[in-house]
């Protein structure tokens, strides 16, 4: 007790008291504020890691605060799903400006991509990276998958072609093939509308419908080629090509043989 009384007079007492008060208020605030949790520190770390990566690889085009520059659009509000799609398919970071970014080899780990996604998501609310129940076609019935085909033909095939093989768009742009695209990326593309693609919100296209479309694409592209080789898979264009090459070409060779063969009038 005496010691405390003696300390009161000490020259360091006031600063120490101030620090103590701050600590008490700080701890008290931490206790009252429900957002502060131990998970938060992990998230904060992830955001920080993401920001570091962002500053290194994305900011030259998208700006230091992701506010956008003349070289790239703002990323505030695009959401984590957009980052996961663009970086997860290798489209970003872009090598150069071109009509449309092609799919390339992915040079980032999923952890790094998620870090950048977390950072971009922290800038403004947007679609989150989906969980597998949202996009996995597991457990769909045949009828639901058939309905997915109908939805695909109505909403997607105008650009992506009859079973998602891709199609041309103006000025060198194109709707990419969906044959090798993962279910998660298809889901994310529909929700975020990358490049030429329109955005399909949950009001327009509920998760169930997205699952049906993905299920249809998997089944349609996984089915055996009924009827034989697809010969280039370009519909009547490849059929026309082959009827001339094999039909007319092949039969002309046979015709030459027949005309040369046997009784000959020359």
């Amino acid at each position, binding site marked *: 007790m005496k010691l405390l009384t003696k300390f009161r007079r000490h020259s360091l007492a006031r600063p120490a008291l101030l620090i103590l008060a701050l600590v008490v208020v700080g701890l008290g605030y931490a206790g009252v504020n429900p957002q502060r949790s131990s998970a938060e520190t992990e998230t904060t770390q992830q955001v920080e890691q993401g920001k570091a990566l962002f500053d290194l690889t994305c900011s030259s085009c998208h700006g230091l605060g992701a506010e956008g520059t003349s070289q790239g659009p703002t990323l505030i509000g695009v959401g984590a799903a957009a980052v996961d799609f663009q970086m997860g398919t290798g489209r970003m970071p872009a090598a150069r400006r071109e009509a449309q970014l092609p799919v390339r080899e992915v040079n980032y780990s999923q952890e790094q991509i998620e870090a950048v996604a977390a950072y971009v998501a922290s800038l403004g609310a947007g679609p989150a990276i989906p969980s597998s129940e949202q996009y996995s076609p597991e457990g769909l019935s045949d009828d639901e998958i058939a309905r997915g085909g109908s939805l695909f033909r109505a909403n997607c095939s*105008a650009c992506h072609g009859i079973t998602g093989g891709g199609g041309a768009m*103006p000025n*060198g742009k194109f709707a990419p093939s969906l044959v090798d695209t993962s279910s998660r990326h298809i889901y994310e593309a529909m929700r975020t509308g990358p490049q030429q693609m329109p955005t399909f919100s949950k009001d327009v296209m509920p998760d169930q419908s997205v699952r049906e479309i993905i299920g249809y694409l998997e089944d349609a592209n996984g089915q055996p080629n009924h009827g034989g080789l697809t010969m280039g898979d370009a519909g*009547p264009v490849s059929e026309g090509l082959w009827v001339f090459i094999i*039909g007319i070409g092949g039969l002309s060779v046979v*015709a030459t043989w027949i005309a040369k063969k046997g009784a000959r*009038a020359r």
Partner: protein
Amino acid sequence: MARPTSVVDSSPDVEAREADSTNSSQTGGVLGWADDRLGLAKLGRSGLLRKVFPDHWSFLLGEIALYSFIVLLLTGVFLTIWFKPSMAEIEYDGSYQLLKGLPVSEAFASTLNISFDVRGGLLVRQIHHWAALLFVAAAFVHMLRVFFTGAFRKPREVNWLIGIGLMSMSLIAGFAGYSLPDDLLSGTGLRFVDGLIRSVPIIGTWAEFFVFGGEFPGSILIPRLYMVHILLVPGLLLGLVAAHLALVFYYKHTQYPGPGRSDNNVVGYPLFPVYMAKAGGFFFIVFGFLVLMGGLFQINPVWLYGPYDPAKVTAGSQPDWYMGWVEGAIRIMPNLESHWGPTTWSWAIFLPGVGLMGLLFGALAVWPFVEAWLTGDKREHHVLDRPRNAPTRTALGVAGITCYAMFWLAGGNDIIATRFHLSLNAITVFMRVAVFVAPVIAFIVTKRICLSLQRSDRERTLHGSEDGVIVRSPEGGYSEAHVALSQDEAFALTQHLQHEPLAVSSDTDDAGVAKKQQVGRVRAALSRWFLGADVQKPTVREIEHADHHGELPEVESSDDGKPQLH
């Protein structure tokens, strides 16, 4: 006033007697039985079976079309057994799972049924479709052969016109058949034709309502197309094919130039047995090719396309190849439209669609008559032209093919854009220029090649061919001797007619009285354009002189005594 016919009261007194039985055939057995009743032996004696045909591979191109047509009839009968030409909507519950439970038309459902539930159905469907593509392709290639060899000239103009009729019928048959399954792709094609019909000025909408029985797509089109596809057009095709072949028999077949061949004979082998065997064998080879293609290569996978719905159009929608050039023309046409009073004139569709098809068939139909008018040639021709000996015709033909090919490529512009990573707009701009420029380049290049070949023929006739032995003289010069051509080859190179351009004829007779001018200035100018550049074939005198010349040593010494390459 008519007089009553005279009536004879008594009939001649004729004894009733038994029918003559000595008329019966010499041969017994089945053949004799058939001959007694059908007179088959007379048919053979008439020379029909001994008709002589010349041998050349290009004469078999038309046969490919004929045999494809037979395959189409055979496989088509099989398909009609299961196909239901109805646009009534039902729920699909066949064995193709990816369309289960969807509302589809009966036509589409029965096509899926043929593909997945009828034994051998998919194979036959694919053979039928490949045969249809091959039929039209072979007909086109056959037509090109006839064009480039001048086989349409007198007396075969009528058969050429029948051929044009066959061609247009085959396009209609192909298109109607392509539309029957009522899938998304063919429905898009139908929508395209709907647009073509509507683009016809003034009557377009009425014509559309007449064809479709109201608004597109209506509910009666598939049954109507079915009638067109299995009854009307095949009937017309069969009739025209019969006429086409009958005229080939009547005129006798044309032949390529060669020793012993003239406009008055046909050198070859008789129909029976040689061509019966060759043609019969070729039928089975064509059939075999088509079965292999149907068995190995997927064609028109309607189950992937899904049922037709006017609200849906997919990327990469293309017509079958023979409509591709019209599709291309419409794709690259700038958007032009006029509104005059209450009418809309959709030039952007009418000109490239209806106009271009009319132009192609119109130009083909009048060509034999135009060419006869340009050359003033009224002779019969049974020996074919070598394409080089009609340089302007050949060049025009190649220019036509080039123009067609440019439109054709434009029809696949989206496939070209995605496969070769090109800009769709750049392709369109390029094609807009190319359809006009490329044919001109092709014309000039082809004409030059033909004239060069004519010159080389002339050179070869006059100087013979190199003997392949290079001789080095003591002075160090090199030379190669020429050997005279065989009589046969010389004949083949020089037998053709040398047409002279028409000269402007006088418009007065000998007495100076005005009369109708036979060859006007325009006709003479066009004739000069058509024939003027032809290289003169060697005259008899030139050949005789050259023969004499040929006995001299080929290496001549010049004044300074050094040998020169001749």
